[in-house]
């Protein structure tokens, strides 16, 4: 056991820190062009697609170094890269399962954010039971025709392309009839509509596909291999954001302490109230535990030990913590925690929520409800942990009899 960074990693962290301190945008990036420009600046500096193999424009960087970069970005509240799903999910999927022609056609444009990507997985009736998805992809001889609806599509509104899961065979068991495609969003058969969430923001979209066209050459892997491909892509990104997430939690914590000093109740600053102190201490302890657990996962990844199903432990742990965190924060702040405009100075610090946006406490609290649903709900994570980590027997399921 040795939790020190190696001299090389330390030097890398220091260089990275200096770069971000010198280059982080001072004003909020508003337009797509500005965000794309920032992405390209990051790419030119070597901070985009770091984990990709060298032959496809990456650096084969270790999980730890990727985590360090994300962490340094969080430290200075740097805006995220604009093509997160392209870099984190789509690119690795094409690298692992794509044809040479697909690699040539798509990868460079993903790295440079020339083309932005979204993921077309969830459907209104296929959430936790993703494999029951109904969107059809029919072989029309020279192309596939896609009909169906997707939902919870992050970045749908700005995307050029989508990584699509659709049913190509209705005659076989549901997991085996799914294929993976690359679909051009800019065509008459694809309609993208923003979806407003409880936060009031529109981070997601609904995507309607009616007679949409997918080229034969844009099938990824084999017909019917889609489910298997989706399973592997889900694990590409685990760990890379873990330190950054904790850094955001910590910077929100310091904003919370500042607020607790500035707000008074019953004749004293909140920070002097033992009940408030107990809650703050609980939050910080849990936040540190998240950090230690992240280091443990990163050190295993660095040794080439894939987290596998154990990544479900990380996801379940942080997303459930995040809910407790912001529940306690809003208990401490009282009604001020719910205010979205007109906040007193003590509360004016923007909170760095896990969505990556600088926002109000109210937003962070509402957003914390998303984490235990997206990318596999807590219940699905517990099933995975129970079956694949603990080896508990599978439940009897109606759809297993097929």
């Amino acid at each position, binding site marked *: 056991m040795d939790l020190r960074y190696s001299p090389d990693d330390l030097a890398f962290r220091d260089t990275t820190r200096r770069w971000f301190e010198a280059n982080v945008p001072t004003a909020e990036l508003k337009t797509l062009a500005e965000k794309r420009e920032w992405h390209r600046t990051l790419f030119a500096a070597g901070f985009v697609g770091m984990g990709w193999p060298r032959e496809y424009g990456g650096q084969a960087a270790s999980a730890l170094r990727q985590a360090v970069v994300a962490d340094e970005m969080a430290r200075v509240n740097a805006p995220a890269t604009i093509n997160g799903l392209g870099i984190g999910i789509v690119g690795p999927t094409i690298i692992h399962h794509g044809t040479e022609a697909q690699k040539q056609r798509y990868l460079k444009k993903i790295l440079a954010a020339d083309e932005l990507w979204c993921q077309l997985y969830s459907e209104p009736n296929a959430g936790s039971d993703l494999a029951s998805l109904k969107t059809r992809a029919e072989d029309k001889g020279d192309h596939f025709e896609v009909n169906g609806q997707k939902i919870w599509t992050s970045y749908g509104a700005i995307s050029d392309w989508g990584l699509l899961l659709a049913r190509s065979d209705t005659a076989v068991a549901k997991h085996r009839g799914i294929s993976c495609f690359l679909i051009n969003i800019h065509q008459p058969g694809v309609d993208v509509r923003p979806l407003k969430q409880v936060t009031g923001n529109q981070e997601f979209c609904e995507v309607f596909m009616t007679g949409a066209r997918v080229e034969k050459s844009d099938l990824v892997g084999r017909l019917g291999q889609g489910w298997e491909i989706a399973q592997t892509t889900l694990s590409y990104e685990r760990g890379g954001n873990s330190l950054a997430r904790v850094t955001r939690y910590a910077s929100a914590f310091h904003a919370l302490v500042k607020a*607790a000093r500035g707000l008074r109740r019953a004749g004293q600053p909140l920070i002097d109230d033992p009940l408030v*102190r107990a809650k*703050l201490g609980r939050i910080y302890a849990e936040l540190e535990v998240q950090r230690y657990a992240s280091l443990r996962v990163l050190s*295993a990844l660095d040794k080439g030990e894939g987290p596998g199903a154990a990544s479900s432990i990380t996801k379940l742990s942080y997303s459930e913590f995040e809910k407790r965190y912001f529940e306690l924060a809003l208990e401490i702040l009282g009604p001020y925690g719910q205010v979205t405009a007109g906040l007193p100075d003590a509360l004016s610090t923007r909170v760095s929520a896990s969505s990556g946006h600088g926002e109000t406490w109210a937003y962070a609290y509402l957003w914390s409800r998303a984490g235990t649903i997206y990318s596999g709900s807590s219940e699905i*994570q517990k099933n995975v942990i129970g079956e694949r980590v*603990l080896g508990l*027997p599978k*439940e*009897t399921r109606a759809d297993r009899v097929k």
Partner: protein
Amino acid sequence: MDFAFDADQQLLKNAARSFLDERCTSAVVRGLWDDPRGESEAMWKDMAQLGWLGLSLPETYGGSALGMVETAILLDEMGRAAYPGPYLPTVLAAHAIAAAGTAAQKNRWLPAIATGGARATIALADADLSWDPAATTTRAEKTGAGWRLSGVKQFVAWAHVADALLVPARTPDGLTLFIVEPAAGGLALKPLTSIDLGTRWTSITLDGVTVGADAVLGAPGTAELLLGDLLRRGAVAAAAEMLGAARRCLDMSVGYAKVREQFGQPIGSFQAIRHKCAEMLVSVENSHAAVYYAAWALDAKADDAALAASVAKSYVSEAARHVCGEAIQVHGGIGFTWEYDLHLYMKRAKALEPMYGDADWHRELILRRVA
């Protein structure tokens, strides 16, 4: 950056598991419940032979000069076995003597402890049960030849078998640690029986206990920093033992859920049980990260070592209680019987929960450090 145990640490863990599986079975643990000493002399000697008692002591005194990570590995395994005996307080007291003792004190106690010839403990909590060394109310007055100590110490672990009691007391020079031997006049020990029969606590009354000038550990007035360090080590050590108890409860629950059938299927196939086990695993793995991060930070003298000790103690205290309690729920009625072993581990974790500062106290320490 490597969070995994190195080869030597893994060997130590494996050796501890084999030894305790063989020598510290639940039958042995249960057999010691009615024993007045409550521990096995033979097991203690064997632990000395294995090098466990001198694990973190300097080599010149018969130790192996290993660190808190290795100590935590052993305590983790001891928690798993609900080992009954004075291991934790003895190594804590030995650390204090090694850190602050005079040459004579080290020569007197450390080889004896390393070879299994002596046991020791520390009386950290006074009558009001504060874990803050600054709140010490026990007093020591100078006499012609030495000191006279008066006060009450509560919940002292394994004092009834200790050859050396480390007693913090307030003196005109400041907080001072004294080594008090059980034969000293004016010392009254009263055993407390609690739910964990493998944990032995004692109330100690010091009614003008006289000790020589050489009973002062190091120099008078120098104990404050040392006591802070001992509390942190005690907190991490207790967390390690709670972790072992919790993991044992989880393992037993998972094993039981695979074979126990109701409604015609193993109960582990029901989400109500499977999800509980998954939550227990998250608590256990997080506890593992917290314990070994804190142990490593103490060894490395990291800037956040004190913070990490409080994080570990506050987190694991609640996590272990939760896991052990849920284990009983997973088992149902059988888990609530005296014959079934779950309560050995559940009670051990519970016994350690208030020791070296409870979760609330450590959360307050955390907040003082970061806010």
